[in-house]
């Protein structure tokens, strides 16, 4: 276990290092490195001073090493727009994104599992067929367009829910959260549902497929034979066995939910990391872009590592040696 973990951590560090090289090449070779350090309206003199003071005339590998040593110390440059260290701006926005992503994942499980269970237990019912057809739609509908239609319907036409922002927040563990106030929850509802829609379809199809495999098993027949009610059979024997792959998929898809929050946050003006990166790209706030990319790489590598760990804990059949 320890050696497996060590190997996995080394792999994770290697991925992060590889990404620093890619981001460095992206900024310094493909992009204009001077523009990264200067606001777009800098004069020619400022430009020359920056080139000299940041050693942009030095060989590339030397520049990379100094970028890397800065990155290790958490120094990824200062944002032009916020005049603050870029990394701290990102860390301030991170809770909003995590809150949205967790809410979406919760919705996906709370809605997807019961629907999938129903479609799996009664595969030939009209309801199950409608759900399966609906899930194809759920896969095909572009997230951003669904978000627009939701705003149009629930905010503009019906006026039920607000169209954007985080609403009133309350402090918990030193961070502001929306889900603790009623107003915050109302603001969270639409973006979370928007982000969850694709995952609801995914979880539903997965649970349906699992259920159909579990229902004909001997132990389910035994449970029925000993006279358990249908509800008890489904709750204790069918549901529990369908949940293992759901846990895996929730872990694996969490990263993709964070990635897609870029879209949802932009539509619903949710002040998280995703909206921040889009704004930064439009404002050419390049230190911010570099910092975001490095932060997201570390976040993803961490998520992948945790999922791998959870997977081995939940399913002992996975051999750690490999």
């Amino acid at each position, binding site marked *: 276990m320890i050696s497996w973990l060590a190997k996995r951590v080394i792999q994770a560090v290697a991925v992060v290092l590889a990404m620093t090289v890619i981001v460095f090449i*992206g900024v310094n070779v493909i992009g204009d490195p001077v523009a990264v350090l200067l606001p777009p309206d800098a004069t020619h003199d400022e430009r020359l001073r920056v080139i000299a003071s940041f050693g942009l005339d030095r060989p590339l590998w030397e520049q990379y090493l100094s970028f890397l040593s800065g990155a290790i110390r958490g120094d990824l440059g200062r944002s032009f727009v916020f005049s603050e260290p870029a990394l701290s701006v990102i860390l301030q926005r991170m809770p909003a994104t995590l809150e949205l992503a967790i809410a979406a994942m919760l919705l996906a499980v709370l809605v997807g599992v019961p629907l999938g269970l129903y479609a799996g237990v009664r595969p030939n019912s009209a309801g199950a067929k409608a759900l399966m057809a609906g899930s194809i739609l759920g896969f095909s509908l*572009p997230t951003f*367009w669904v978000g627009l239609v939701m705003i149009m319907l629930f905010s503009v036409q019906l006026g039920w829910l607000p169209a954007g922002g985080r609403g009133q927040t309350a402090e918990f563990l030193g961070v502001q959260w929306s889900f603790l106030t009623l107003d915050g929850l109302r603001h969270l509802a639409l973006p979370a549902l928007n982000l969850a829609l694709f995952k609801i379809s995914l979880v539903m199809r997965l649970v349906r497929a699992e259920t159909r495999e579990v229902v004909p098993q001997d132990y389910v027949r035994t449970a029925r034979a000993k006279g358990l009610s249908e509800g008890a059979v489904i709750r204790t024997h069918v549901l529990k066995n369908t949940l293992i792959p759901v846990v895996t998929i929730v872990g694996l898809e969490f990263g993709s939910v964070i990635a897609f929050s870029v879209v949802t946050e932009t*539509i619903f003006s949710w002040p998280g990391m995703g909206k921040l990166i889009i704004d930064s790209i439009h404002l050419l706030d390049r230190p911010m872009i570099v910092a975001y*990319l490095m932060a997201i790489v570390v976040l993803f590598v961490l998520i992948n590592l945790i999922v791998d760990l959870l997977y081995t804990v939940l399913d002992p059949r996975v051999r750690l040696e490999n």
Partner: protein
Amino acid sequence: MSAIASAPAARTPLQRALRAFAGSPLAMFGLVVLACIIALAVLAPWIAPQNPYDLMQLDIMDGQLPPGSQAATGMTYWLGTDEQGRDMLSAILYGLRISLLVGFSSAIAAAAIGTTLGLIAAYAGGRTDTTIMRLVDLQLSFPAILVALMILAFLGKGVGNVILALVIVEWAAYARTARASALVQRRKEYIEAALSYGSSSLRVLFRHLLPNCLPPLMVIVTVQVARAIALEATLSFLGLGVPVTEPSLGLLISNGYQHMLSGKFWISFYPGIALLVTVVAINLIGDRLRDVLNPRNAD
């Protein structure tokens, strides 16, 4: 693949697959819809009521008219107009051109690159295989939208840049599939036979391995075209995709976004419907292809 006619009506595998495909009304419906959409996009300059990017033909006084309004010239704006008085129906037909161009060209380029690398990995094995597959793993451990976002943040907007970003995002799926099926095919006797009578590696790769790896790759191509179209639309919506001069469906939706809150829904809504219909049609075809081309379902 046996040459011996076992059934009374001897058919090639292709004919069998086509027949099985036609057996699903839903898939045939998808195919017909997609054919219509492609025809509309190709013929846009001749069938669109106006050229939406010829400023001479636009009347700013006709801006933001609801669907069904009449223009001063007598033309009817069936799907309304945008803020510059552009007929939305024409804009959608022209937008489809860009969306389909980006979707198909990126999927085909990614298929060519990914398949070649996958075949090489399977055929060469050893260190080449490990290097290529490590790259695939690295690529697939990050969501497509993030990678595309990153590339476009470096390169800037542009149709060419979007296609490049999509190719970089998509090649890994082809490489993985091509390698998997090439590994199976490689052990078969016809490859051994081809090698034993002295065929070059190149010939074995492309003349013998590739054709036998095509069925699963066809499924991936279909799925990836739909994904590419949706991803391009998303990127353009975020303002990172195509430039204003070449608006795709995604950019049209983005332009209408600001008018949504004032109830002028049509500027965003109808381009979205066009996008949705395109993606659903391709996915219906892909779903059926997956069933038909699955070797487990072969008779």
